[in-house]
């Protein structure tokens, strides 16, 4: 195989004493600790690792890093299966399972490879031009076929079994990338005492220093890396974060990063799999390095064609070369000096070289190998892996060279992605032939090293130090300049060669199968802006976001337009830098923990008493309490509702918002909050109030109790508790700060229990401490502060949602449970019955009280029949706008509806039509808002808004529910099915 046999003193960064076994496509292999899946596959002679997206061409490993476009595998199996994982970024572990993707019938004999034969028909944008007839065939035939063929890996369809975490860091300086520049930057800042976070996507810090095999201060560069890391690790102000990808730059110095805590282990065990870090840094240094680009030529996509710098990395760091057979020689194709550095490295490692094809005339060998100066590669052979390469020499003659690997060196593209996350555009450097980070990058992000064009080791080291000093100066810190280690010059001497012209297909984007021809066709069809070209050809849209293709494609475009690269444009990169698992972004708040769950003070009591619960916003409320023998929820609800009308019921209403309003100007303030007047309310009295939005629509309703001079308690609906409080604070601070009034939300402070029914007074008399509840002293709409149960402070409000004599009794929240138990115990002989939200709804519909369905933000006070509550005599929020014609002229009114056939159920959401009218939106006269079975009426009943409903009592109309095939006759009745005169609640 092709693992290099190296002397111990110069061995690769693998542990030959720790062999690890793994499988790929079910076959067993062995690698070493320190290997990636990619290097281990190479060591085993595996070249073919996948298939391309469109043509299903054979694909091999192309790079040694996160830019990998080809070697995407499904890692692990079962619920932990992870599709589209870059083999180049997977650390080998014992028992690793991986499989190739995107093929039908095996990666070697992929039946979908038939697409490649059809390639002439699958040109850029072909699908926009066909599959249009017959119309019905798209969804039934064409699209399903396309969908099956497209996509890469498969999801397991099982829930992710691992756990995830979130973390927050606030360093002075975040250094992104731990190569030469990043290490030097971190060292400079760390020695100056700054809080430093150093993050690198690699498991091992050192960046290209690990791959180059070069010397620093005369010793292997890896020694220097180890020494610096040891110093940093020992400093308390430094946090080293390997396996951590900074994926996005957000506002105000906030960086998103993912740490792969245990992806290098077979299973996470007790640890989380990954952590999402939000790093808020005063400054950040972007030392993200550079990515090598390739040079498209005919049939350049075969397994065995790699980036030259990656070849060097595999040889030096992992001690492998990627031939299928170890004896096959390696050929290099380059347009700059860097290809020769690979040749040198390989020679030094004892690899057999077939030579260097250098497009520069006059290029010379830097060692003992053949250089074809002024030559280019014009073709390749080898079905599942490279066998031969065709070159055209300076004199124009063609020849074939046998080789197992071709390394391509087209120059380096700085990794500018993070610098363009705030839409800053990279700028073209015509000398270095690269894009550099532009001047309008994110505030506080300082590019350094190869990421801003200083790619040689010596330049990167110096630039890292420079960047750290810049950052420290900006943070008002003084920094000593650590000495730079001695390194060799590494000239580039690049001359432009963006692709080798030819008739055959030359791949630019290897994953999405975009060729030079496709870009030319795009140009021919006037898809000439860069964005049009990308979208028409899908170039750069693959999982690598064009890391190995975008700049090359731009150069091809520039050649076609003749405008030069700078004027042809650039593309900006969007987060994330590399793909991020949804699991880690979604953190741990999933399943039942997706949102907080608020429990009422009587929750556990209700649980013990057979309650079924229902989500009401964040709250869980008792929906009904099933008694033994009740088999259907309606039995429970009917019983509970009857008990309230006949005896006494208890319902936890703690969830209603409670806002304490105090101060000399409280009355004036509330007059402006409520549409009706509150300031005339006397202590000890409660008033029903309506709140409007400033646009005049109804917004919330509830009661306002006056507990004393300048002391009110406002209640809101459950759903609007937070919003009403926010709006009241807005009014207090932003509209009328001159008023002397304070607000506090006490929703959670008080447990509140509705005690409703003709026997409610009798029950309450048994718990109050000598308080006179008689109708004369404590009539309907009275309130008081008192004590109950022998000294417990309480508030009592005589208000009614059910239409019966009723009270709401509030005690400090921690006594809610005990109060419920006490009331149940004391009321046993009175037939006291706990009731849930369903019975509550039945009671309020019977009484015609509005709730959420009627207060849906689209309705007016007048529609509820409460138009006169909107005072014209004072200024209040929404008063002026409620008088606009669109609101004032809206003649829909709340009515009751009763089915002509009492056995028929009225569905909420049915639309209302006049008898005999055509049913269409134009003739629509309203809708049913709420409906229920009324045990009191012994029929289904409903509330709804009906055009001129107040004038149509007695009329029979149609309730249309075509959605469920219903069309029901109902009679319009007043929206009070119980005690329309209101005598009962005043008893």
């Amino acid at each position, binding site marked *: 195989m092709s693992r290099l046999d190296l002397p111990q003193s110069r061995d690769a960064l693998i542990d030959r004493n720790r062999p690890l076994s793994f499988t790929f496509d079910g076959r067993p292999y062995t690698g070493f600790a320190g290997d990636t899946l990619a290097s281990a596959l190479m060591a085993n002679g595996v070249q073919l690792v996948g298939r391309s997206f469109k043509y299903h061409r054979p694909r091999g490993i192309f790079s040694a890093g996160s830019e990998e476009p080809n070697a995407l595998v499904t890692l692990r199996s079962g619920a932990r299966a992870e599709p589209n994982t870059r083999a180049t970024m997977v650390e080998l572990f014992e028992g690793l399972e991986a499989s190739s993707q995107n093929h039908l019938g095996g990666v070697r004999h992929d039946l979908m490879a038939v697409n490649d034969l059809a390639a002439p028909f699958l040109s850029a944008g072909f699908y926009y031009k066909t599959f249009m007839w017959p119309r019905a065939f798209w969804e039934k035939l064409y699209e399903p076929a396309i969908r099956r063929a497209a996509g890469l890996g498969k999801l397991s369809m099982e829930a992710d079994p691992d756990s995830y975490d979130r973390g927050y860091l606030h360093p002075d300086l975040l250094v992104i990338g731990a190569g030469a520049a990043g290490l030097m930057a971190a060292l400079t800042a760390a020695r100056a005492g700054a809080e430093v976070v150093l993050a690198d996507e690699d498991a091992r810090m050192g960046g290209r220093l690990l791959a180059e095999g070069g010397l620093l201060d005369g010793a292997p560069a890896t020694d220097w890396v180890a020494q610096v890391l040891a110093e940093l690790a020992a400093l308390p102000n430094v946090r080293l974060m390997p396996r951590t990808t900074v994926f996005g730059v957000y506002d105000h110095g*906030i960086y998103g990063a993912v740490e792969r805590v245990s992806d290098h282990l077979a299973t996470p065990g007790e640890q989380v799999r990954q952590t999402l870090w939000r790093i808020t840094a005063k400054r950040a240094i972007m030392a993200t390095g550079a990515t090598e680009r390739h040079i498209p030529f005919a049939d350049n996509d075969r397994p065995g064609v790699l980036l030259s710098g990656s070849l060097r990395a595999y040889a030096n760091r992992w001690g492998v070369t990627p031939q299928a057979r170890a004896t096959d020689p390696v050929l290099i194709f380059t347009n700059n000096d860097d290809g020769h550095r690979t040749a040198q490295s390989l020679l030094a490692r004892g690899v057999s070289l077939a030579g260097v094809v250098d497009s520069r005339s006059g290029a010379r060998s830097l060692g003992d190998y053949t250089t074809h100066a002024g030559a280019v590669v014009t073709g390749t052979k080898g079905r599942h892996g490279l066998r031969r390469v065709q070159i055209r020499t300076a004199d124009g003659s063609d020849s074939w060279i046998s080789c197992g690997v071709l390394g391509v060196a087209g120059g380096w593209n700085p990794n500018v992605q993070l610098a363009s996350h705030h839409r800053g555009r990279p700028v073209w450097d015509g000398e270095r032939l690269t894009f550099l980070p532009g001047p309008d990058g994110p505030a506080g992000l300082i590019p350094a090293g190869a990421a801003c064009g200083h790619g040689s080791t010596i330049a990167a080291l110096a630039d890292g130090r420079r960047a750290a000093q810049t950052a420290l100066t900006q943070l008002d810190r003084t920094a000593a300049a650590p000495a730079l280690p001695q390194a060799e010059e590494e000239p580039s001497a690049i001359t432009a060669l963006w692709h080798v012209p030819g008739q055959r297909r030359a791949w630019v984007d290897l994953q999405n199968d975009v060729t030079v021809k496709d870009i030319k066709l795009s140009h021919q069809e006037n898809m000439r802006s860069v964005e049009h070209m990308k979208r028409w050809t899908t170039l750069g849209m693959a999982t690598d976001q064009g890391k190995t293709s975008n700049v090359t494609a731009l150069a091809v475009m520039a050649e076609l337009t003749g405008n030069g690269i700078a004027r042809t444009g650039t593309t900006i990169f969007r987060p994330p830098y590399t793909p991020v698992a949804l699991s880690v972004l979604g953190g741990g708040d999933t399943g039942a923990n997706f949102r907080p769950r608020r429990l009422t003070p009587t929750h556990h009591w209700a649980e013990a008493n057979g309650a079924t619960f229902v989500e009401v916003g964040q709250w869980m409320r008792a929906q009904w309490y099933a008694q033994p023998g009740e088999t259907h929820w309606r039995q429970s609800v009917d019983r509970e509702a009857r008990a309230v009308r006949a005896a006494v019921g208890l319902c936890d209403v703690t969830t209603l918002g409670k806002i304490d309003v105090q101060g000399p100007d409280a009355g004036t303030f509330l007059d402006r909050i409520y549409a009706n007047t509150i300031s005339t309310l006397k202590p000890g009295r409660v008033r029903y109030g309506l709140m409007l939005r400033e646009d005049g629509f109804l917004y919330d309703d509830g009661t306002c109790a006056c507990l004393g001079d300048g002391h009110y308690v406002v209640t809101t609906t459950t759903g609007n508790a937070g919003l009403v409080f926010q709006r009241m604070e*807005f009014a207090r*601070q932003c509209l009328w700060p001159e008023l002397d009034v304070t607000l506090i939300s006490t929703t959670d402070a008080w447990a509140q229990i509705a005690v409703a029914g003709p026997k409610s007074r009798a029950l309450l008399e048994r718990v109050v401490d000598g308080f006179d509840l008689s109708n004369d002293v404590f009539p309907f709409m009275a309130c008081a502060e008192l004590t109950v149960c022998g000294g417990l402070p309480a508030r009592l409000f005589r208000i009614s949602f059910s239409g019966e004599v009723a009270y709401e009794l509030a005690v400090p929240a921690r006594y809610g449970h005990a109060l419920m138990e006490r009331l149940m115990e004391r009321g046993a002989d009175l037939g006291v019955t706990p009731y849930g939200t369903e019975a509550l709804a039945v009671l309020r519909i019977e009484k015609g009280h509005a709730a959420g369905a009627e207060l849906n933000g689209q309705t007016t006070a007048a529609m509820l029949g409460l138009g006169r509550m909107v005072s014209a005599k004072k200024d209040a929020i929404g008063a002026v706008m409620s008088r606009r014609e669109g609101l004032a002229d809206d003649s829909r009114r709340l009515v009751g509806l009763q089915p002509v056939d009492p056995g028929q159920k009225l569905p909420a959401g049915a639309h209302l039509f006049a008898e005999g009218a055509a049913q269409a939106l134009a003739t629509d006269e309203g809708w049913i808002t709420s409906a229920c079975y009324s045990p009191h009426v012994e029929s289904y009943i409903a509330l709804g808004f009906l055009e001129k409903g107040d004038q149509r009592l007695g009329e029979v109309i149609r309730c249309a529910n075509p959605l469920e095939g219903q069309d029901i006759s109902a009679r319009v009745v007043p929206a009070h099915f119980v005690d329309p005169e209101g005598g009962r609640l005043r008893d």
Partner: protein
Amino acid sequence: MLIPHPLLGLRDAQEFTYLGDAALLNRPDPAAGEAGFADYVYLRDNPAGVHRELWFHEQGDRSWLVVTRNTLTHEILGAELARDVKLGGTA
């Protein structure tokens, strides 16, 4: 985003809820009538650039703030208590 709360220092924007243009401080007198209120309730300058806007420190001290922020860059140029702005007479 981070919001420089005038009393509490830099706070994460997640602690706040956003309302909109600080012109909402300038609620007209009822005499302005429907037309005056329609302007107030609905119309906005909506600048691409410096914008004065209302944020509520809902998960914090419940202050309403007037934050001056660039809508093109999200750069924050300052934050004041809305109450101070209102009492100071200009929004």
